[in-house]
């Protein structure tokens, strides 16, 4: 190991110890402060490439339990979290789509229609997501639907994870992941965090229905969707430009595949039933994760995927371990009052600003704070009303402040790979390194922030007067 690497690896420990032994700020408790020290160090270690996320999270969970910062049952609660389990099962089911041959068929179909360029493929995926989003109240489930398609398209185009050919796959994966964030902002019913935030907005005296939401979100969200594949393409070039011959070749290969096999029919049928369960889950009182478990069980029962296939899913285990730990740590930071404390102190310290400056500052802070959250809904519940209160009391018009926070509650999810459980499925694909995910996440979030502030805010102000 080089001296540079040794220094790099020492930085997270120094950061953790520095924060840990700094006097606990007035109003916080020692456990909350110490947990923040470990959490910040774990994220920093990934950002500076000192450790992989799995290593950082394992060291972190060991430290917080062994030092008595939080109880073991609190530290391990992420392993039983339904969102974490949904991600893991969706990941395995996606492999079934590929293995059965259905993924290949879908991939060839998509390439035959949109495969003239990598940009065309990216737009087809992002627009498909935007089109199906209003029917899916869970964007994690929507990620579970899109991921097998994106995976199949990437593999069909010869892009494999952890290889030189990974760039096209990485490009498509990130476009899909960021597309989910925008489609969740576009439609009122596209993520479970939206109805929660709407209840808070209603308490503040503003009624927002489906049409009003769409009117306010349409312009900034459609601009974001239009620019997303272009911006990601500049930041992370897919290294595959125009492929005018690809659609014809795909059509030929598709014709050569013949009819669907038994496994393809079973996978397609199971997938359709799972999608129906996810769409109508709320109305039928079905748990989204249980729908995924049942689909997984059916695929195992009918031997579409076998125990042997599961034993090869080492990446899934890695994802499960780090995600569950980060999920629990973020939830505990929230439960111990750290998130609320930071949010309330920051928001209430902005007195004296003009309402426009206050609005921009609050939205920027609200987005950046998501770095510490692993769930959109958790941040909405912890901070939405605080920021809404401070903004409106500072003179920001209620509709503008409300919509600014509502949209941010969706598009901020891409800021980190763990910023929304829907991200994890794509982040764990192996097409992008953790460092690339953080880099792209930060930059795309800044792009979204600029679009929604510079285009969305005047638009909302204009149409909601």
């Amino acid at each position, binding site marked *: 190991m080089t001296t540079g690497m040794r220094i790099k690896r020492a930085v997270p420990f120094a950061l953790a110890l520095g924060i840990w032994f700094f006097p606990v700020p*007035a109003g916080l408790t*020692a456990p909350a402060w110490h947990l923040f020290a470990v959490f910040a160090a774990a994220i920093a270690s990934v950002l500076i490439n000192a450790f992989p996320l799995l290593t950082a999270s394992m060291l972190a969970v060991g430290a917080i339990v062994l030092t008595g910062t939080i109880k073991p049952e609190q530290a391990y609660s992420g392993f039983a979290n339904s969102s974490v389990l949904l991600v893991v099962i969706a990941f395995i089911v996606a492999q079934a789509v590929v293995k059965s041959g259905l993924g290949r068929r879908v991939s060839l179909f998509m390439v035959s229609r949109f495969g003239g360029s990598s940009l065309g493929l990216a737009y087809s995926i992002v627009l498909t997501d935007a089109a199906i989003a209003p029917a899916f109240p869970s964007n994690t489930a929507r990620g579970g639907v899109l991921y097998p398609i994106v995976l199949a398209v990437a593999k069909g185009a010869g892009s494999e994870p952890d290889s030189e050919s990974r760039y096209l796959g990485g490009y498509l994966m990130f476009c899909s992941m960021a597309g989910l964030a925008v489609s969740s902002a576009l439609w009122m019913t596209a993520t479970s965090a939206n109805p929660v935030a709407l209840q808070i907005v209603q308490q503040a005296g503003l009624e927002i229905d489906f049409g009003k939401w769409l009117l306010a979100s349409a312009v900034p969200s459609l601009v974001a969707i239009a620019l997303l594949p272009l911006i990601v393409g500049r930041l992370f070039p897919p290294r595959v430009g125009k492929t005018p011959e690809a659609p014809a070749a795909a059509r030929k290969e598709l014709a050569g595949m013949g009819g669907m096999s038994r496994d393809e029919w079973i996978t397609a049928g199971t997938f359709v039933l799972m999608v129906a369960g996810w769409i109508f889950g709320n109305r039928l009182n079905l748990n989204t994760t249980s729908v995924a478990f049942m689909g997984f069980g059916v695929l195992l029962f009918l031997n579409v995927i076998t125990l042997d296939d599961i034993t090869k899913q080492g990446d899934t285990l890695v994802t499960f371990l780090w995600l569950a730990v980060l999920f629990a740590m973020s939830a505990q930071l929230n439960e111990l009052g750290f998130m609320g404390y930071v949010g*309330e102190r920051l928001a209430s310290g902005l007195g004296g600003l003009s309402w426009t400056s206050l609005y921009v500052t609050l939205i920027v802070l609200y987005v950046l704070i998501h770095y510490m959250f692993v769930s959109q809904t958790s941040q909405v*519940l912890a901070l939405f009303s605080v920021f809404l209160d401070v903004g409106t009391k500072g003179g920001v018009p209620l509709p503008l402040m409300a919509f600014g926070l509502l949209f941010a509650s969706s598009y901020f999810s891409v800021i980190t790979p763990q910023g929304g459980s829907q991200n994890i499925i794509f982040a764990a694909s192996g097409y992008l390194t953790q460092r690339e995910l953080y880099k792209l996440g930060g930059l795309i979030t800044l792009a979204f922030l600029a679009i929604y502030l510079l285009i969305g805010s005047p638009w909302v102000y204009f149409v909601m007067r």
Partner: protein
Amino acid sequence: MGFLTRAPFLLGLAFAAAACGPATESQGPAAAAGADLEFSGSWSGLGSRHTISLGGERYGSIVDLKGTMLLTGPGRPGVGFQSEVIGLTDSATGFQGRSVWTDERGDQVYSELRGEGTAAKNRIAGTILSGTGRYAGMTGSYEFSWQWVMEGEEGAVHGRAVDLHGRVQGGPAAGGSPR
């Protein structure tokens, strides 16, 4: 590009540090011993709620909430506390609870809570009984209303209390409080 990669994290860390600030112990305005000192603030909490039906429209719930209480005003006993509440709500008879506030030193304030506990009349009144450390001997009272209480992920319950007002006697504010 390296800086841009880390910029959101560094900004977030800087904001968190700015929000937290150092644990200062500045002297507050001296007040006469025994004088009432007023404070106000807000409280956000999350935890769990278990509800059973008691027949018809009547129901009973046990709640366990933990969160951040931030206080303002010249008589505040501290800048903020981690506040934990356990309680029993009966839709017919109201709410009975107990609360403990813990500050950055681990010193605590204990109180009893009582209120209607319904959506329409959710005013909760608290009586500060005693405390430990710098809050030893402190008494007082406070009131707050729930701005909202709603179910979150995994059955968790979240709530935000506003319009929190209270007064204390014999607290650290009388002889110089943490600000």
